[in-house]
């Protein structure tokens, strides 16, 4: 069976082609674009909200994309338990749409930051990390101006209690360290999931670290984990 991946394209998405490439070349999926004005997600096994600057990110990142027609379908799909992965701008859209908790504020350094980071797997309660042992450190790039994840303290406590923090930024040694977090995120959070685990958002870009030629294949582990979980679920 071939997986079906739908990559949503908002005006201003710019990692859509990268995500499609990763889905096809790395996951071996049958991948397609879904234009933001469509409502038909094309029966996917996974929906990816890619990175970029939807609507120029002119108001708040993700704020305008949230109102795209396609988002109604994405919300309904997620509520039915469908798998949704939001990368960077996609994560911001998911937060704005209320599918994931917290907000992404401007980076603490007030500058866009593009560099390689290390993130540690904190939760395996999503198909994307089910096959990646907790504590695994993954290397991949970040590239964003607004990746400073924040939430009310009680929200964070609640997330921790339910194992919903999926990734934290860590230093070279694999531990949380000063300077490891590129954007000032609360508690070094790099990615979170919803309670059910079918929706995951993260700021780093696994699709840019999914082939040896790009310097890291760690991102591919998330895709491979998803493929395994989904195959397991189907069997």
């Amino acid at each position: 069976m071939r997986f079906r991946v739908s990559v949503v394209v908002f005006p201003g998405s710019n990692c859509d082609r990268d995500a499609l490439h990763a889905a096809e070349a790395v996951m071996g999926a049958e991948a397609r674009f879904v234009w933001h004005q469509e409502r038909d997600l094309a029966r996917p096994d996974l929906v990816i909200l890619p990175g970029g600057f939807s609507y120029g990110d002119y108001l708040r990142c993700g704020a305008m994309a949230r109102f795209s027609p396609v988002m109604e379908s994405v919300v309904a799909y997620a509520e039915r338990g469908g798998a949704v992965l939001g990368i960077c701008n996609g994560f911001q859209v998911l937060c704005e749409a209320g599918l994931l908790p917290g907000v992404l504020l401007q980076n603490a350094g007030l500058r866009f930051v593009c560099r390689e980071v290390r993130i540690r797997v904190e939760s395996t309660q999503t198909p994307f990390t089910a096959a990646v042992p907790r504590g695994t450190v993954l290397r991949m790039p970040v590239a964003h101006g607004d990746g400073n994840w924040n939430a009310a303290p009680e929200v964070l406590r609640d997330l921790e209690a339910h194992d919903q923090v999926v990734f934290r930024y860590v230093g070279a040694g694999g531990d949380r360290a000063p300077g490891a977090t590129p954007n000032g995120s609360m508690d070094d959070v790099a990615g979170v999931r919803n309670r059910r685990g079918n929706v995951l958002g993260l700021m780093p870009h696994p699709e840019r670290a999914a082939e040896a030629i790009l310097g890291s294949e760690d991102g591919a582990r998330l895709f491979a984990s998803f493929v395994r979980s989904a195959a397991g679920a189907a069997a």
Partner: protein
Amino acid sequence: MSYEPVTATRALLSEHKLTDEEYRRIQSVLGRDPNIVELGIFSALWSEHCSYKTSRVFLKEFPTKGPRVLQGPGENAGAVDIGDSLAVVFKMESHNHPSFIEPYQGAATGVGGILRDIFTMGARPVAVLDPLFFGPLDASRMHSLVDGVVRGISGYGNCIGIPTVGGSTFFHPSYAKNILVNVMAVGVVRHDRIFRAKAAGPGNPVLYVGSRTGRDGIHGASMASDVFDDEKAKRRPAVQVGDPFVEKLVLEGVLEVLQGDAVVAIQDMGAAGLTSSTFEMCSRGGVGMRLDLSKVPVREEGITPYELMLSESQERMVIVAHKGREEEVASVFRKWGVDAEVIGEVIAEPRMELLFAGEMVADLPIAPLVEDAPIYRRPFVLPVPAGEGGKSVALDGAPDDLTALKRLLASPNVSGKEWISSQYDWSVQGDTVVGPGSDAAVLRVKGTRKGLACSVAVNPRFVAADPGLGAAHAVVEAALNCAVTGARPLAVTDCLNFGNPERPEILGQFVAAVRGITGACLALDTPVISGNVSLYNETDGGSIVPTPTIGVVGLLEEVRDAVPCRFVREGDLVVLLGETRDEMGAGEYLATVLGREEGACPSLDLGAARAVVDLLVELASGRRLASAHDLSHGGLAVAAAEACFGAGLGVDLDLATDLAPVRALFSESAPRVLASILPGDEAAVLEAARRRGVPAAVVGRVVPESVRIAVRGRPALAERTGVLEAIWAGAFRDAMEEA
């Protein structure tokens, strides 16, 4: 009625930067006086910026042909075959004056403009590089100029999603009141999808696509052709504001529409907006156009035909479609949320007829404004190279060599520029194999095994000392930056930034530089396929140092085999390729350590440069190179230290030379390369070098943690790599963050 013939007063002509002589020529072309719209059009098209009226005669010298060249200069960008039915398209441009006035928007719209040049050719842009030239950081406004320019490039390039993978940053007092912002863009296209900007087919509709027109940057083209002064900075012409979001939509729309066959010709609106785009398309095709300017989408009420023709609003294109296919074209853009309007049609007669509200507001012939625009043969005096016969410069007051190395690593020109490059998204599109921080960036070409190496270079101090030789050095350095990755340099683009060409000594610098580039390009077999000239970079009588920025793209047959520029493994042998001579003149050591700018530009043997390039490509394709880094600012000691950074490695070198240690360490002789190879490969590597006549010697090995350099067995300097790396990595960041 405002379309009566003008009265050519002094003031009117000077506002339009037209000389009396040029005005007489206008009268004789038209057989009458022009009206104001026509005068504005003449002024824009005959500006230096659009017409190259001073530079054109010299640029003819460039070699522009080669077996791989699919498109040379004359179109929006040049194109070179890379096999697999693909071509690489690239070009460099300047946005100097606008960036000095408003650094964020000036730099941002510079990125936008050069990207349009790439995608109008039908190519998807894959990379941006940004050669920047600033005054000293403590000069007035400089800190915020640097900050604004970097934010502008970052803001535009990141949003549109094209990785900024490299660049260069050079500081020199001559740029204090005239910074240079050059931007190079690279794209990839299938041969059969290369589009050109040649209008054809009378009756074919002309479409306006993109942002609405406002009163932005009117007279931008003539401003770029004028000397800058403080008074003008105060007048503040309406600045163009970029909208990268719209550009992204225009880009996708253009690439989508060019997949079909509804489009005859396409051109972006750059300097002098609607005027230059339409006239140039007509000129290339030997046809004319009839346009109804009332149909141009506008942003505000009351914009006049004069303003419509001269506005430099961004993110706009002109498309000539096949008759009857206009709706098909427009609907693609509408899907992307972009305005597209038919504003006129192609006519057989080579004239431009402009209507507005039912009235003819301009009626002009094409050729006299474009291909037959004035050409000047201005007088020039060729420069006398600095430094008597390359005499050795005295180094009185030199500190010990380790102190000197540390000062060099901390100098703004040598120190690491991660503060800049980390603000750019260099990994978007998922093709960046080597990002900023190396001699050249390397991108894979999806769907093939190939890679593209991209680099920019120029050492303005070399050019100042000897414009011809210095410009040749720039070509060699950019080519070598590509070759150290293993890539075969394919072709050159350039951005020639000079002062006021009406001064014979400045024009002489220009002429010498063009000749220098020509010689180097012939020797390296890298034709010039595109470029840009920026003259009048002069403020209050002070000219910039001549700055011919060179961009090179190279081809890697196997991108997996790209050679890194830093040492990779302890125990590898270190090989120095090329000859080290006593060449401290015009160097970084002299300027940074001793505070002097004098002496001769280092010599350059173009045959030797070709041999080194060929050798590197040969060694890399035979997988004989573990790493390779070319020697530039600061010479061998700086390059050796840089090659150790990142991986916690060190190097132990002993140089066999007759030179004094300080000269052996810091001379900037070129071409030279520091490579590391597996022990056991040295016989093969040295033999390959010998066959090509490249001086080569094993000078040491890669060791853990410390940089140690001896000359003739006597230690010259030793320091822990970590200490040197901290200096190098922190100096620029600290200078930018502390204020």
